[in-house]
């Protein structure tokens, strides 16, 4: 039984805005299947007494005080943008949902 189907890979590609061709889907589906199967082996050693974790550090409750720090000057903030207009980031027209 495969860990991930070709359809699922196509769905993920669409969600990630990756334009994958048919060949690439075949190729990646097989590869991803192998990768997931390999990672799944972790479950063989992860017994009940080992909680799933999302973070490498044994820390919680790290907060900062509510203090204002300097922001970037707008020209610097916009400096790396492909396009800017009226001190705003200019982006291609947005299709679909109304903001």
């Amino acid at each position, binding site marked *: 039984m495969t860990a991930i189907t070709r359809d699922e890979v196509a769905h993920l590609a669409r*969600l990630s805005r990756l334009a994958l061709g048919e060949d690439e889907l075949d190729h990646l589906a097989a590869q991803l299947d192998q990768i997931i199967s390999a990672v799944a082996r972790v479950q063989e050693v992860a017994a009940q007494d080992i909680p799933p974790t999302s973070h490498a550090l044994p820390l919680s409750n*790290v*907060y900062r005080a509510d203090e204002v720090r300097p922001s970037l000057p707008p020209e610097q903030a916009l400096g790396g943008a492909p396009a800017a207009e009226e001190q*705003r*980031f*200019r982006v291609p027209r*947005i299709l679909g949902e*109304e*903001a």
Partner: protein
Amino acid sequence: MSTLALMDYDEAVSRYEPVLGVETHIELGTASKMFCGCATTFGAPPNTQVCPVCLGLPGALPVANRAAIEGIIKIGLALNCEIAEWCRFARKNYFYPDMPKNYQISQYDEPLCVDGHLDVEVDGETYRIGIERVHMEEDTGKSMHVGGATGRIQGADHSLVDYNRAGIPLVEIVTKPITGTGDKAPLVARAYATELRELVRALGVSDVRMEQGSMRCDVNVSLMPRGSSQWGTRTETKNVNSLRSVERAVRHEIERQAAVLASGGAVVQETRHFHEDSGTTTAGRSKEEAQDYRYFPEPDLVPMAPSREWVEELRASLPELPAARRRRVQREWNLSDLELRDVVNAGALDLIESTVKAGASPAAARKWWMNELSRRATEQGVELADLPVTPEQVARVQEMVDAGELNDKLARQVFEGVLAGEGDPDQVVAARGLKIVSDDGELAAIVDQAIADNPDVADKVRGGKVAAAGALVGAVMRATGGKADAARARQLILEKLGAS
């Protein structure tokens, strides 16, 4: 916009039972953003409150704002929620340029606050609104659509984005399904939004200004045929940005969905957009193409585990909440349920309380705000609180009435002057010469004149018909332009005519 088939509201609610849900987003009023130190000032020039963290630049790392976490826990506690002992942030992944990171930091299956309730009242009946969850997230940037006819996204050529708002702490409050409201559904939805706004305002964690977007509601509505227990397909109406619109949006969706169902059609599960101008909704994104946000625990932030000591400390710090406050003033001011409701609905509670603090009696304070000043606010089409008169000024006018320096008629003229920007009450009194005439010498001359002008009436009074004296008091009031002390004038008239 296509023409919408609607069913008459009364018929709709007689045939179908609405089920509601409300999702509310509230921006917290912290000085800095949720995960970075950028300022949160409303209306700042575009992209002047941005930094590597909120722009999602490589290598930047977020750190949660402690004041925001305190704010959401206070909201959770005030809504009678359980506060999670341990929970995490999650990444909500999507491609839309309102977030420069391509994801929004939010919470998914581990919200900070769960399972609360808020009681709201409509027409004397209490509805307990269940709270499903309250979670912490960050606000998005603001887009301006350029090239379209109306600044709307349709037909736009390109969009311009300002990220000042991106990263401002945002609390999302989600109700459980609200059932059993029947024809009151739109009012219950509005009452809930109103009560929630009052509650958050009392907590002092947000300015909750719907017109500025610091509180925004999405309303879910579905209908089921009366007698059925099978819920219908729901729609989610976004962009509902005033209390009145919450009511109108629910009402409109009930009328629209009822028409669809009655004609044998099916309600489409979709996002709809509310239009303030027409009070209608139009279809947006269909849930069939619902986004898969690929949520996963946020690796850049560590879990939150609010200690029980901290939570109890925050609970102890909660101010008097609106419901308790209303019960207190009702008792202190000796109001009936109906009188209290009128005061609350008029937005006069704060004003009356401040006026009482400034020295007026509750009855007098309520009289001025609920009658004369409410009338003038209505005339001018503004909220009571936005009238250019302060509680201290109202208290001062009442002080002059209590001292016998003004009667009600003159007091109304003083308010007219204050509202017209002629200064504070004492200045208006002086400038307009509004002091009451109670000086006996001056008043006696006017009384003599009134008696001389009305010999028939005077004779009747002399003959024992004391009630007839009213006509003479009226003459005195006319002669003084309403400035006479009516009680003193009456006394003088009766003395002079030997009828006292």
